[in-house]
Every structure is written in structure tokens, then in C-alpha cells.
């Protein structure tokens, strides 16, 4: 079974869970006598979701013209040639960055993130990468903190 059908199957399960959650949604006392309830649309949506997902699962694969998604098309059969390892490492780096941003501080975390992801992608010229990352981080920090007035803690927890 193709990937898109598996996704549709997963979506059926999600719709069922969502439908159950909507069905058992705790109504406020005064809401009970109303015509439209907070869980009316969710219930309808879960039914619609199951219907559309079933259509995808049950219809045989149609030929797509492919014209509209020339940019988005990616060939599943070439999956082995793709650099999946690099992509996974980058996702890991993003998660690390998300967790570390507050405690480590914006400037250190961002510089490390930029240098680290560059390293993952194969950049070894650290004498160029580190200054570029520092300058980029500094400019963005200045723009966000000074120009936009959004607080970003620049320094690690033990310094501020």
C-alpha cells in the first residue's frame, strides 16, 4: 500500500479519536439547551474526515497530471539516494535548539545552531562559518530585541 493510503488510514484513526473526544466533550450547564453546541462542528468534522479518508483508501490510484506540483514533486523511488541522515540530524538540531534556546541564551544557542547545522551539511571551514554565524546572530538579535522590542535573553542562565 502506498504512503498516501497509510496516511489516510492513520487519519481515520485520528478522526475516530477526535470524534470520541467531541462526543464526550463536557458541556457547560447553560449550553445544554442551545441548538448549536461547542461539539457540533467537531462531530461533523470527524464524520467528514472519515468519509474523505475512506475515499482515498478505497479509490484506485488515479493518474495525476503533475503539472500543478512540479515544485512539490519528490520521487519516492529515489528515497535511498536522498540524504535522509542529514535531514534527521537537522531535525534533531532544531529540537535541541528549541530546548536550549532559553537556558543557554539567544546568542550562544543560535551561533551554535548555525555552526552545527552547517557542520552537519558538510561545511568544514570553521574560520568562515563561525564569524558568519556570529554576525548573522548579532544582526537578528539587534533587529528583534532593539528594533522590534521583543525580549530575547541574550546570555546564558548563569550570566543574567
Amino acid at each position: 500500500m502506498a504512503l498516501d493510503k497509510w496516511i489516510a488510514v492513520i487519519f481515520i484513526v485520528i478522526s475516530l479519536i477526535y470524534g470520541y473526544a467531541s462526543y464526550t466533550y463536557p458541556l457547560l450547564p447553560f449550553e445544554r439547551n442551545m441548538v448549536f453546541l461547542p461539539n457540533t462542528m467537531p462531530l461533523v468534522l470527524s464524520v467528514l474526515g472519515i468519509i474523505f479518508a475512506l475515499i482515498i483508501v478505497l479509490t484506485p490510484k488515479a493518474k495525476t497530471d503533475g503539472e500543478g506540483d512540479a515544485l512539490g514533486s519528490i520521487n519516492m523511488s529515489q528515497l535511498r539516494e536522498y540524504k535522509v541522515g542529514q535531514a534527521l540530524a537537522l531535525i534533531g538540531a532544531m529540537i535541541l535548539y528549541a530546548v536550549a534556546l532559553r537556558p543557554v541564551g539567544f546568542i550562544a544557542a543560535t551561533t551554535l545552531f548555525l555552526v552545527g547545522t552547517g557542520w552537519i551539511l558538510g561545511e568544514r571551514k570553521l574560520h568562515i562559518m563561525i564569524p558568519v554565524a556570529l554576525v548573522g546572530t548579532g544582526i537578528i538579535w539587534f533587529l528583534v530585541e532593539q528594533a522590534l522590542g521583543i525580549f530575547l535573553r541574550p546570555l546564558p542562565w548563569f550570566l543574567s
Partner: protein
Amino acid sequence: MLEGILLGLQTAFSIQNLLLVVAGCLIGTLIGMLPGLGPMSIIAIMIPVAITIGDPSAALILLAGVYYGAIFGGSTSSILINAPGVAGTVATSFDGYPMARQGKAGKALTIAAVSSFAGGTVGAILLMGFAPALSTVALLFHSAEYFALMVVGLSAIAAFAGTGKVAKALMMTVIGLILATVGESALFNAPRFTMGLQDLQSGFSFVTLAMALFALPEALYLVLDPKRGSSSGGSAAIKELGVTRDEIKTIAPVVGRQSIQGFLIGVMPGAGATIASFLGYAVERNIAKGADQEAFGKGSIKGLAAPETANNAACTGSFVPLLTLGIPGSGTTAILLGALIALNVNPGPRLMIDNPSIFWAVIISMYIGNVVLLILNLPLIPYIARLLTVPRNYLIPFILFFTMIGAYIGQNNATELLLLVGLGVCATILRFADYPLAPLLIGFILGGMMENNFARAVNLTDGIAFMYERPMTLALLIIGVLLIVLPAYRRRRARDLQKGVAQGD
């Protein structure tokens, strides 16, 4: 109307707003050229900036400038290195890239600049004429009609999804609607489906969702497939900027036709620049005869002018439903709609009456934006193109960083970043499986409004009788159903017909 235009002129020609248009066009062009960042992601990145400006018309002017610039920048990278940074400029690369390889890169860029200018300007003139007419009709709309209109918008998106993808587009729309129900319930704003998490009580942030759906998958694609948008051989052969008189004569009718066609396609909710550019290319190829038709795909100036004109006209056209009805015609205008709501402006029929300065300032700044783009592009093209030679080892880390910081500064919340990465991975998998992602975002943005309007209509009329008692609601709902059913029916009939012929023989 004249009063409004004058008011708009006054607002748009203030020093601040002029600077914003120029800045927006510059930023849009620069970032739009980078493969992987389309207008949708750039606008999403710019939203925090726009919101901090505070003044809605200034913010919208900035974002409109970014929008134009991004579409324009996308054509530059399509032409020079065959790497369309934007879906709407894919058709541009069909003939633009062959021209660049023949050493006519300068000519190709000039034609692109001039036809975009023409398309955008004609679009803006049509917008002035059409928008007030559309909005007078729209004043008759009540919550019941609004609900029906949202249904039409959602089903139009599905209808344009392409062969064999209607069910997928509908499923994605439902996912978007489901995501919109997380947060607070309609009418009484009690917490709903937050799974006890306080971070979810205000719902998913739409900037996070937009980043996760568009910018992140694009960046991950660039990592997965290094051949995609490889940045090599940029500005080597940019010469021969001039366009001869004969060439202008050749493309003039194409530009005329495509400005109008593109605008009309842009007006329809769900169509937008991508479809307008493909249709424009297809129509012009069919109209052309003999050798002219042969040249399409091999460096025809008509084949370059058609999609470029159409996509810019469509960009302008998509502002009609956004400004007059509050319906986003594309993913990008959906993001703009979100920005407007964040700025406390309710786009819709009342916009022209309540906030005429916003409405007209935006239209006037479209003219200014077009002129600015032309001035920017002609002399700067050779220099701008050098940005494309940034090595991907530097490009990708910065794209990832920009998406994350875009989501972070919107909410100032680290949970948002984890959410972004999670949703981004899901979105990448969905794109692998050939699911369209724009319907999801449009569903998400329209979801809350649709539920609120429906709830209001149901509570006002004490039931769902309004669906068939109000003629306009009924008509709109029928259109919505037809938009989904008709294409499917037509395809089935075509298939049956084909089968019948085969069996008959």
C-alpha cells in the same frame, strides 16, 4: 469612490508608507530569489515585523510589497538557474531558463520585469473597478451567507486541486478545520481539546502552522535532494538587456490577454497565481500558430511573458476577495488575512466603509509597488543575482533559523518551537505522499470564522432552516457542492466515454 482614492493617495504617499513599499519590494525580491522561500513563508516571516508597526494600512502596504517582490524574485531564480523559488513562477522557467542558456538572460529578465509590471498595473486598475462593485453585493451578507461563502471558498480550493487530488485536498481541509477547533470553543470561549495543556489554550498559532507547512518542508527538501535548486552558475551570462521593438509588438497582445485572464483567475477563491500562470502559459501556447507554437518551451518570449503577466495580475486579483469579502483566495492571502485580524482589522464588506483609508491605501500602493519593482529590477538584476551563489551549507542553516525565530518571536514560547518541528516533520511526510498543504492552512484560517458564523446563524434562526430559506445562502451552498461534484463527475464521464470507445471498437 473618488474621495476614497484621494484618501488612499494621501495615506500611501506618506514618507513612511513609501519607504515601506520600497523596503517590502526589496525584501520580497531578495528573499524570493532564494530557492525554498516563497511569498507564503516570506510574508509569514514578515508578519511579526508588520504587527509591530501597529498601523494596519502601513502593515498591509509592507506585506503587499513583500508579496509582489517575492513573486518577482521567484522569477529571477527561475530564469537564471531554473530553480523557481515560488510555485507561481514554475511556468516562467519553461521558457525563461532556455532563454538564459542561449545567453539571453538579460533579455529574459527584462521581459519578465516589463510583463510583471503590466500585469500588476492592469490588475490594480481592474481591482479599483471591481472591488467596490463586489463589496456592494457583499453588504447584503449576513452570518448565514458568510457561512455559505466560507463553504464555497473551501470547496473551490478542493476543486482546483488537480486531477485525482480532490479527496486529498478535502481531507487536508478537514484537518485544517480540526486544528482550528483546538483552543477555545465557539461563542463561549471555554477551553476545548487542549488536552490540559495551557500552551494550547490560545489554539495553534497560525505563523507556526504556516512555517511548519511551507518553509520547513521546503528547507528539508533542499537537504534531502541537493540537486534541487543547486546554486551554481548564477550571473555568468547576463547581457543583452534590451528588447527590440518587434519583440514588444509580439508580446503586447499576450500581455493584454493575460492581464485580464490572470486577474479573473486571481479573483476566484482558491485559484491564485500558480494556476493563473499555468493557465496563461497553456492558453497562449494553444493560441499561437505554427513556428510560434513550436518555439514554446525552447525560449519563446511569448511563453515567458504569458505566465509572468498572469501571475502578477492574479496576485492583485486575489486581493479582491480578501479585501471585500474577507475570503483569502490563496495560501498567501490566507496569511495576510491572519495578519489583518491580528492587527484588529476585519476584512469584509464593511472594510471599505469603516476603514476606507486602509482599503484605498493598499490599492494605491500596488501601483507604487509595481513602479518600484520595475525601477529596482532593471538596473539591479546583475547584482541581485549574485545572492543565488550563497553556498547551501550557509543558506540552509539560515533558512531553518529564520523559520524557527519567526515562530518563536510570535509567541515568545519555546513550546511553539517543538510544535513547529513536529508539525513540520508531519508536513514533510504529507508532501512526500503528494498531499496538497495549502488547503490545510486555508481550512485552519477559515475554520474559526466558519464555525462562529454558523453558530450565530443557527442560534438566530433556531435551527438550520436558514440553509434553504435564505435564497442567497442556498445558492451559495449549491455552488459549493457543484464545485466539488462537477469536476469529479466530468472526469468520470470522460473516463466512461473513453472506455466506451475502446469497447465499441
